[in-house]
């Protein structure tokens, strides 16, 4: 994957008038919008550094600015080529924004870019919460089987509510944990003279692995919370 720095170094020409492009988005000479350059990832296209910690308002600002450049509504009467570019770029821009604005999907996207291929998110239950999951499943099953007038029902309900609140805290902690890992990752990348140095690579892989694990934990906690909430609302849910 090409880094944004390398991309900027490659001079490209306008598809319409062949003028040299100063901006990857639009030709200065003939004002035609330009196709999304091959191999450009979402970060590069939005002109953002490939970092995990990003200011959300900055992502949004870039997204809105580029939406104004590319949106098909502005190209109703343009050349078919320009209409196609507008459609493809606007669609990818929307996808880019969706992917980058959310911390979890941003992390997954970086994992993908770094491993070069679509890396499956860890599917196995993280060992540190396995016991918790089994316990919760039993309580939820109990709750469903209890009669409304059974005093145990109310007790179980308040227990579940407490657990839900605890999970909510846990869930927020994973985000803080992710933040720390993101910062660490960004620091390693900033300090490295070459990303291909064996030591840097090892460090990088290690952090990405921990991010991966944290993301899996997050996913499971989220599911437990959703199931608990749904069960308390009286919905029938298939447990995990």
């Amino acid at each position: 994957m090409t880094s944004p720095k390398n991309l900027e170094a490659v001079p490209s020409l306008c598809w319409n008038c062949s003028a040299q492009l100063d901006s990857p988005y639009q030709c200065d000479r003939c004002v035609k919008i330009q196709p999304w350059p091959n191999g450009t990832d979402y970060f590069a296209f939005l002109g953002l550094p490939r970092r995990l910690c990003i200011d959300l308002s900055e992502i949004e600002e870039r997204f809105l600015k580029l939406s104004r450049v590319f949106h098909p509504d502005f190209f109703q009467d343009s050349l078919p080529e320009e209409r196609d570019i507008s459609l493809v770029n606007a669609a990818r821009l929307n996808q880019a924004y969706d992917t980058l604005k959310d911390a979890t999907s941003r992390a997954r996207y970086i994992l993908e870019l770094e491993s070069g291929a679509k890396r499956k998110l860890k599917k196995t239950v993280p060992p540190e919460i396995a016991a918790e999951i089994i316990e919760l499943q039993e309580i939820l099953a109990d709750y469903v089987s209890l009669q409304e007038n059974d005093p145990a029902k109310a007790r179980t309900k308040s227990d579940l509510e407490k657990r839900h609140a605890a999970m909510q805290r846990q869930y927020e902690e994973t985000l803080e944990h992710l933040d720390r890992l993101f910062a660490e990752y960004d620091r390693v990348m900033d300090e490295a003279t070459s990303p291909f140095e064996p030591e840097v690579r090892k460090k990088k892989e290690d952090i990405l692995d921990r991010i991966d694990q944290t993301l899996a934990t997050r996913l499971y906690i989220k599911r437990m919370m959703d199931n608990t909430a749904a069960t308390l609302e009286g919905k029938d849910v298939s447990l995990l």
Partner: protein
Amino acid sequence: MSVSSEGRQIVVGIDLGTTNSLVAYVDGDTPRVLADDDGNALVPSVVSLSERKPAVGIDAKKSWVDRADTMVYSIKRFMGRSAEEIGQDRRYLPFGFDDDENHLIHIQIGKRTYTPPELSAMILRELKKRAARHFAQPIVKAVITVPAYFNDTQRQATRDAGKIAGLDVLRIVNEPTAAALAYGLDRKNKQTVAVYDLGGGTFDISILKLSDGVFRVLSTNGDTHLGGDDFDHRLMEYFITKVEAKCGQLPQKDARTIQILRGEAERVKIALSKEKKTAFSILLPGLSPVTGEISRSELEELIEEIARRTVDPCRQAMADANLKPDQIDAVVLAGGSTRMPLIRNLVAEVFCQQPYTELNPDEVVALGAAVQADILAGRRRDTLLLDVIPLSLGIETIGGVFSRLIERNTTIPSSTEEMFTTFVEGQTSVDFHVLQGERELARDNRTLARFKLSAIPPMPAGIPRIAVTFMIDADGILQVRARESRSGVQQTISVQPSSGLTAEEVDLLIKESFEHAEDDFNARQTAEAVTEAKTIIRAVDKSLRENADLISEAKRAMIAAAVDHLRKTLAGTDHGAIREAIDELDRVTRDLAEKMVNRALHQALKTNTTLNATSKSPPGGQPSKSRP
């Protein structure tokens, strides 16, 4: 053709409503609705299909009871719907449905049946006529609004209606989004807005973020079969029980009775938005009159359960946008039903704030449609709408599971690709079933299209790599491509959901409509040419009388012949012939016109008056037009 006097394209915005419809345009920078000569902007979405005198709008509504059996309305509730989806509605309507045909709704009036797009097209044609009159030229391009929660079939039905009416539908825009455009046009500050849109037949809730002219929809939800009509039905039931109590028998179930009950229900409902109580009186044929009084709280008791059905979609939309009520800066109301105090209280309760009520809820959607029309006409670059798809899109995978490729509330345009493979050893073709909806099983969602990817070389199960790409454009039209990457075989289809009409039927209806449109257009052209010709003949006669000495006898004879010829063409309806005769007269009088100008000039100099005299129209009307 559709170029206005400034050489600009006219694109109008149309709100095709369940109860009322409107057409609007942007005048300079301000969106405006177009009213009729009496100042009515609303065109009742009512069609009277009497064989003697079919009518649309106010004219149709006039014979509400007299021609009850020719009356069709609430057509929007049946757009893109199958017979079993109409449910209870038929009990409260004066017209019948013909369910014989496979699942499609046909509305029966007299001996004929009509499809909902055909009937909607009649209303659209009325709006088109209104706009054409206003701009004194035919209108062909339009933006039409639909409920945000309309599915693809319902949207396609609306598109078809536009086509049948002879309109080039540039865009189908979601109603709450349009309302937000109208609300936020002059507001440049960043804010989050909810639009609560409860019309005659449909309910939508959309949450948008406004920042510096960009209107981004965060989430949308709704119910396409919930609105003022349902409140009317409850009131009709209430009246029926009153009639039964007083007269000891149920009223007849004929068109006339239904119209009387519905008319009174609508009137009472509207009155109770202003008054605390109102009198009602029901005069049914063959029964003694039933009168009484109903209070607002009695009405609210009847309809509260229905009104509460809007609460869950609101909560879901907030959850999808990841927002709490206190993060919403304003709640904008659209749709006539939001005038009801019960609804306003409900909105205040759900969003923990008083709704914004400064805008006319009947007009706000049409005004927003006009703004989007202005953008698409290329006249406005400071405003941009980023809308979403209301329902998830995906394909059926093994075991009848619905596998989503594009989630609901995804900003459009959007594209996505996912890899699939085969399940059976040596499988050489794969059937794709494209669906729309939120349910887990394919069979619970709505089918959009089916297609087959064939000629895959035989391979063990799980080895083929089939990339399925969904591309949805700014218009919400989906294109699906499936490609097996090992062999390179591929199949692309553009998903064109059926509206209930086949392509051939739509084409036939379009053809009929264009033929009529041609008639209308010709008639107007002829009328204009005749008026112009008469003016010119008068001017030429006068000039000849006053200035005959300026030209030769032969020239005078030529002019007389040209006038004579023009008079003859006026008897026919061929506006082309009239125009030619006008041009000919113009040509033969040119000489006279010049001499008259000179004479006037000399006289002016002689009498020392101003040169204004030369600006008097020379004979021939508008010679400047044909001269280079």
